[in-house]
């Protein structure tokens, strides 16, 4: 829906029709079962540039983001060709342009490759990995703690509630004194 969608994703999002059956519980990520070790390294470097860390925030690579993507792939084999090809494309470009693995090149070079992937080379894979990275990141407890610390938004309130003072209806006095404002049907 409008309030959970990216505004600049590709026209065809292969993840969209699979979302209903790809929920992964917080305790359902663990051993990597789909991705091989080389692709894990590439993907980890990739998600680390999608959401990099700084002095306040962890990078997505420091969390279980790759495990989350791997678990999603386990539930949705249809995504494998798209995502694996995207990961392989990142690796191929890195080796062609820098003579090294994607995970080993400087961050700026990684970012430049991801820009290329997003624009041309692997639009769909990039979009899917971005959405999964965001999902994994913002459900992680360490991140939610920082969200609370840095913005004041406390996820605990959204599941437990919090008191709010009753509506001071005296505020409506001005309007209540205004004339009726509706048209009758007769």
């Amino acid at each position: 829906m409008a309030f959970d969608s990216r505004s600049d994703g590709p026209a065809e999002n292969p993840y969209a029709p699979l979302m209903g059956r790809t929920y992964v519980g917080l305790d359902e990520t663990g051993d990597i079962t789909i991705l091989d070790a080389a692709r894990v390294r590439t993907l980890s470097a990739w998600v680390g540039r999608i959401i990099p860390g700084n002095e306040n925030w962890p990078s997505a690579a420091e969390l279980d983001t790759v495990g989350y993507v791997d678990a999603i792939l386990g539930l949705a084999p249809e995504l494998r060709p798209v995502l694996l090809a995207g990961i392989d494309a990142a690796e191929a470009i890195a080796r062609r342009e820098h003579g090294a693995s994607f995970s080993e090149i400087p961050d700026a070079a990684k970012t430049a490759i991801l820009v290329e992937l997003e624009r041309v080379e692997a639009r769909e894979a990039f979009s899917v990995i971005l959405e999964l990275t965001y999902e994994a990141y913002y459900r992680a407890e360490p991140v939610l703690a920082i969200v609370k610390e840095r913005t004041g938004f406390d996820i605990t309130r959204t599941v437990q509630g919090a008191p709010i003072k009753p509506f001071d209806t005296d505020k409506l006095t001005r309007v209540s004194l205004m004339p009726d404002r509706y048209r009758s049907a007769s």
Partner: protein
Amino acid sequence: MTDTTTTGVETTDVLVIGAGAAGAALTWSLSKRGVDVLCLEQGDWVDDQDIPKNHRDWEVRGRHYWNASPGKRRGAADYPVTNLGENPVDVYMYSSVGGSAIGYGGHFWRFQPSDFVAKTQDDFGVDWPIRYEDLVPYYEVNEEQLGVSGLGGDPVSPHRHGMALPPVPIGKIGNKWVDGFDKLGWYYWAQSQAILSRDHKGRPACVNRGFCAFGCPSGALALPSNTYWPEALDAGARLTTKARVREVLVNDAGEATGALYYDENGRLREVRANTVVICGNGLGTPRLLLMSKSARFPNGLANSSGQVGKNFMPHVQTMVIAHFDDTTDADHGAWGGTVASRHFYETDPSNDFKRGFTMVAMRGYSPLNTALQTAPWGEGHHDALEHHVNHEATIWVCGDDAPEAHNRVELDYDDLDPFGLPGVKTYYTLSENSKKLGEEGVRRATELAFAAGADSVRSPGFDSILGWHLLGTARMGDDPTNSVVNGDNRAHDVPNLYIVDGSSFSTGGAVNPTHTIQALALRAADKIWEARNA
């Protein structure tokens, strides 16, 4: 449609198809009078553990199995929906006991008197065959039954009518909106909501978890499943879930005799009934009518007018999201609305468009949704997130859109459901009137945002229309040549078939429709009762 072998035949007096807002209210009303009612629902009860807001990762759950879009959710009870046109509607709906209300925010409005006579007063759309006063007794029953919170005295409400319970708290952001409205001198009032501000009929008061569309763990949000259904079942109504109706059956006299449906094991079953009521929503109802072709009704059941599926009205909807330097307490408080304005509701002759819109002053978004909307990937991600999260609040704009034949729903035989039944295609293009009305809505909402202290705004515009309100596709009218049901919600073509949901709206008004859908359902129950006792 060709028949196949059926497994067993059930009988009932009244068969209701769909256990959502309308089906629940109508079943309750009839079953309390001792009528034998069987309701078939293609979805199921919502398990408490599946309510996203019972979990800290509710945002992710809300994007997956709870996703409001059937095209993304694709659950066992869903059918395919493809959205087309120049302004495709992002259709939101659920198949469940409670229907799409399980994902609503609880805005609970009555229509205005002028909504029923837009043709006469404004040469806009068509008139309804009933008037506001016809629904008042049913609005009142519904407000008491659900425990609607609000406040009497609103000069924009006819006779400044009251509500069952006091208004819900508005909090810090609500007070900002109040300041904004007062600066502008506009009309506004406490938002009436189907959310308990006090304990009511065994349900506890809201504790301000917010983000109500992701499920209400306590039941403070009024749903068919925690209001009408428990009482209806106690009164003897029967409810069969995971029952996908394939076809409404008719006899040679053109009367409805029941329905064929697939049970949870995929077996085809038949129900025979004296009266059939379809409550399938603005997409599901025309879908079922168009699937129910027969020699007598070759263009679909109750479709001699050709109006079934036409006049699709989702409202002219968008949002203006305001940014404040101060925090907005976005993590608690009923999400649906704080205060709301119908200052621009009626036609203003000085405008270059007819009819008007509502503005609902709401709260802000949560971290994941904010990140997806506003935070770019890369180095700027965290700064953007910190800028937006807990510093925003939303004004939702909802405008009246006229019924137009080219805005429609059709069967889609290229995309079938798991039972081989057709999906649905929707077509929607904003009219020139709607575009002008929508632009004015955004302009006024932006004015309000800055008056309330915002330093910037953003809006998704109208490229994709928010699709909670599915209206008009089996509309009500006096003339059988251009409408599907009469003023009693009874099909012109089939004397014992009733259609009660958003599809029967002649025009859509400019407010959330659930209250009016349920008022129509309660009234239709009376009409069914009166017809059989005449």
